[in-house]
């Protein structure tokens, strides 16, 4: 039986959005939310998620208008040659920078827990090789790996969250929406938080592989709603367990949450390491999809034969970038820059492209 070119179903596309969105964000998002909104931090996560779901709807509608093409091909037609080129460069750069950041997060996680003395070349190098190997495959293979790994990460994460409920104190969530706890001066933290929800641009690169392109919008919206729910519930539990003051001080909240669990008479003594092992898969799916988006974008931009050449050619550059982010403070600063790029793409460019496509009417739908 022949393999179809359009091999992805809507469910897989939803999981692709989910796989890119759920990654390093879960480790830092609750503390960022607590810094800005105090005990009601979960509410800002929910509002931000719903706001970005609107963005996801726009991205879905835009992609549906060009079911045979990716955004790299139609953006110069809509925006004009030079602005289109600028958009493409921002698009590719933002996804490219995601990979070294995810590598660096993994390096930190592995060094603080699993292998304290492991050298950078070993951890980052092996992770990068796995990313390049995965991203050089065909999209249906990538979607299958993403599907499996993200489900493992979510199931393990859910397991940890459920066990952590033993320390949940509803009082920690009060006062609800108190003016004293809101810090408008730290609203710039919202940019960093926004990155966690801005996974929908991935759809612009996978729509030519979707079996029924008319299902694009529901698929991407579902993906974003699911991300919103996951992050909101997670932030709610973290705030309920630690309280907002302690949450603001924690760098790796997910790990602290796993450490807080006391379970006796089990095979494994510490659950945080299990969480890390499973969370490697969540970090991997984000970096894998970013790698695919970058390589597929460059391939389409320069009309190359295979995207695999691009990702392997980018390996030294990505490795170099990952070594630049020497510590927690450097990569968190860089992740804010990347988040800002994603905000520009999602809040400015996508609505603009959609409006232009409606006006020019040169879509296929």
């Amino acid at each position, binding site marked *: *039986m*022949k*393999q179809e070119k359009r091999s992805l*179903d809507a*469910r*897989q596309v939803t999981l692709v959005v989910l796989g890119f969105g759920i990654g390093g964000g879960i480790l830092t998002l609750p503390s960022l939310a607590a810094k800005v909104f105090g005990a009601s931090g979960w509410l800002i996560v929910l509002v931000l998620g719903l706001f970005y779901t609107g963005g996801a709807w726009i991205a879905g509608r835009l992609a549906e208008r060009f079911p045979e093409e990716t955004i790299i091909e139609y953006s110069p037609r809509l925006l004009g040659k030079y602005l289109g080129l600028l958009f493409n460069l921002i698009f590719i750069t933002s996804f490219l920078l995601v990979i070294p950041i995810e590598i660096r997060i993994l390096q930190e996680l*592995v060094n603080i827990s*699993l*292998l304290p003395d*492991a050298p950078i070349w*070993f*951890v980052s190098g*092996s*992770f990068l090789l*796995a990313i390049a*190997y*995965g991203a050089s*495959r*065909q999209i*249906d*293979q990538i*979607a*299958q*790996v993403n*599907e*499996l*790994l993200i489900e493992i990460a979510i199931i393990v994460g859910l397991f940890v969250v459920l066990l952590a409920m033993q320390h949940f104190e509803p009082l920690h969530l009060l006062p609800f929406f108190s003016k004293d706890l809101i810090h408008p001066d730290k609203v710039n933290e919202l940019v960093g938080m926004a990155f966690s929800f801005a996974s929908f641009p991935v759809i612009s690169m996978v729509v030519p592989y979707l079996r029924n392109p008319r299902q694009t919008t529901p698929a991407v919206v579902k993906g974003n709603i699911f991300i919103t729910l996951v992050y909101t519930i997670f932030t709610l539990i973290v705030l309920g367990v630690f309280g907002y003051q302690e949450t603001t001080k924690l760098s790796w909240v997910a790990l602290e949450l796993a450490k807080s669990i006391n379970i006796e008479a*089990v*095979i*494994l*003594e*510490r659950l945080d*390491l299990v969480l890390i*092992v499973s969370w*490697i*898969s969540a970090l*991997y799916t984000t970096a894998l999809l970013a790698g695919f988006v970058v390589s597929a974008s460059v391939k389409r931009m320069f009309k190359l034969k295979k995207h695999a050449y691009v990702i392997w050619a980018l390996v030294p550059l990505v490795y170099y970038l990952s070594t630049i982010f020497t510590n927690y403070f450097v990569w968190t600063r860089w992740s804010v820059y990347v988040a800002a790029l994603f905000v520009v793409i999602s809040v400015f460019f996508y609505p603009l492209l959609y409006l232009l496509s409606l006006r020019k009417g040169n879509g296929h739908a």
Partner: protein
Amino acid sequence: MKKKSFRRPRSVGEFRKDKESKQAADKEGQQKERPVLTRDLAANTATLKARIGSSNDVVFREFVLPLPEPLRAIIVFVDGLSSRDTINDYILQSLTTFDGEAADWAQDRRNLAQKLMDHVLNINEVMLQTDLEQIITAILSGETALLLEGEDGALICNTRGWEHRGIEEPESEVAVRGPRVGFNELLRSNTAQVRRWIRDPDLRVKSMEIGVRSQTDIALVYLESVANPELVKEVVQRLARIDLDGVIESAYLQEYIEDRPYSLFPTIQTTERVDRVVGAVLEGKVGILVDNTPFALIAPVTFWELYYAAEDYYHRWPLTILIRMIRLISFFFSLYLPAIFIALAVHNPELIPFILTIKVAGTREGTPFPVVLETLFMEIAIEILREASVRLPGPFGQTIGIVGGFILGDTAVRAGLISPIMTIVVALTAICSFVSPSFGVAITMRILRFPLIIIAQIGGLYGLSIATIFLLINLAGIRSFGVPFLSPLVPLNLSDLKDSFFVAPRWTMIKRPLAYEPIDQRRAGSKANNWWEAAFNPPQRRPKGGKKKR
């Protein structure tokens, strides 16, 4: 002085063109030289003798037909491949004793071969063949060729009959419950067995011959109204492309038609059990039966199906769920247990509960080798023992198991060469690897275990995670005749999950596995519209005579 001339170098295109024209000329020459049958019996006999007569097992028996004008004839067959009783009773006796003087049809010699077929040869399968190569192939396949004076063709009579093993229970796939029948080495017997189980007029048995020298008979079995025609076409095309000397076992074909010939994972299922092939055919797959081997091939197959046993469907469904869960846990242990043990013992002992850590450390005290070497030694020792016990005859094999497993292991622990905990880990892993119903996938797990042990030593749990990601990428890329290897888990197919890690009650499985894209998706006989309707209204509770009228 004559100038020395160099030949102009030929381009690749010219070289290819020359080669093709040379091959075409050779083929034409061969066809021209190819001997053909004439109307002269002596010449025909000489031609056949020149081709196959130098073998002592080829019998040439001349006799005279009792026609008004006696006519010389000859039968040619291979001793041992053809049934002597059939030849004596239904060919020789019929042809030498009929009353040719009195028969009207015998007065005229025109169309004599056809007339003999119509009036004399009381054998079930006879055909006239004029192509010499076809005649020789038929003789070497156990059929008998009858050549007549004045005829430039031969009558081919089906007299195939040779000694063969009876129908027995397959030793490699023993079942507690289920039919005790397996395939044998006789292709026709095997196809007949499949037909005996499926009396559907849509069951197709498509024959092919593969192997330039062996000319082995192959039979494809499938349900025409169920199996996807694209799948059948693909199987036929892949088989037709095979170009090899001889087919000794179905594994020869397997290597040629697999999607990923370099992958460690088998993408075609092998079985000796008739019920397994029948079940696969009913689901829309294609069975490939090969002459001279009891091992049939089934295509396509998914990774999970390699962990199903035929008898899973003969037990009640709750028991099957338990059995499959145990099998999956065993699969995980057979692949990962030694590696996880090393990762925890070497890199993350803090993960192991304190009392267990003390116990493990206590048992390892005084052992001379690092844990990874100890594991590798033990794993290699187990593999050697396993291989030795398989190669030796039954009682000796058991002895090897006892000597190796019990005496050697116990002595090594007492001597302090290995730790008791390591013996437990390696023995448990070995037992888990025996649980796999598929020998092919069990071997794959054994091969993968060794690199995982080394990776665990170097990279601990992190290394194992990355190795697992590589493994999953590899598995996700495998397709068996277009079917994703990891389906129905990824891509998720809820309908097919009913027969995957667990088994739903039979009456709820109203659809065939959709991964194989059967043209008839619905299993015959199911009254319910969907599985939940079937689940909440099982056939046992339905009133007789259908639904009640309101």
